[in-house]
């Protein structure tokens, strides 16, 4: 594990996580959540858990983002809080 890479990815995970809950636009939050999942996928693969990384990439960054976007498309893009 390269520690520089690890720190960059970890800080990206935290940035994406905070952005996903603080952003007002729900579509943007869905995309940020996808980016968060992708960063987690990179983290898993850096740690050598390739199977988990594959699952995270396909489920977390792929299909769940599509579900979020579909739900946002059918409800509203703005949060009340």
């Amino acid at each position, binding site marked *: 594990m390269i520690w520089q890479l690890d720190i960059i990815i970890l800080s990206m995970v935290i940035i994406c996580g905070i952005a996903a809950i603080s952003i007002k636009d729900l579509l943007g939050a869905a995309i940020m959540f996808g980016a968060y999942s992708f960063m987690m996928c990179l983290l898993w693969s850096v740690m050598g858990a390739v199977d988990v990384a*594959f699952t995270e990439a396909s489920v977390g960054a792929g299909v769940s983002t599509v579900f979020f976007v579909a739900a946002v498309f059918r409800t509203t893009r703005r949060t009340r809080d």
Partner: protein
Amino acid sequence: MKALGLVAAFCLGGLLFYISFDFPGWGDAKSPASKHVSPYYIEHTMEDTSVPNIVTAVLADYRGYDTLFETAVIFSAGLACFFLLRIPEHKAPAARFYRHLATGITFRIEKGGRLPDDTKEFERIDSVWVPYDVIINMTCRLVVPFIQLFALYVIAHGHHSPGGGFQGGVIFGAAIILFAISNNLRRTLKQMSEQTSALLGSLGVIIYAGTGMLCVLLGAGFLNYGALKSFFGVDPVAARSHSILMVEIGVGIAVTAVMVWIYYNLSSTGKQDEGL
């Protein structure tokens, strides 16, 4: 209320952070898991199951119960979405939109108006405006078969490389969802109806549980794949390898169907009339 939530989140986060110091270090060879559990799998997986990818062997064979119930959980997630969102009978929409295929002109037909009967010339489009783009349409149509082929490869090659039923199933479902997004929901429902996806979802779980029951009928424990040697006509080790593939196929079918089913209900708010 917001401040209270923030305090609770920080407290729980601090607690988790504090507890994480007790965890063994990454790749620590002296941690209990690496001392007793992992060496057994690393040394015995090949002679027990002849599967080079240890993760697949652990997932589908040694910890077969977990994966069976994971598949059941995914199926019940699809079922929950169905019961929460599905509206079986609903009023017809106020206006329908049709596109004349040759000219690209869009028609708006009010409720009670005469709908075009020759579907070769007119195509129904969604009332929420979805731009018609021939490039997106054709590109997605060309890409979808290759994604599906890759998904089948991921399922079938799970013995040797990362992948397996869950990942392959999700990719296969994503290919169908891509088709639904780039074309429209009604055309996708013609290819794979809601009944099909619900039946396939339960079929996948049944394949998995049925493999386990077959082991019981052949005189071994539930999901003890060695008993299937007479079913496959090979030695017990190869029988385990074959059974893992069978189980992965079951998982793949279930996950594919449930992903598509959830998308159908989610993107059309349960009406399954006009999609994303």
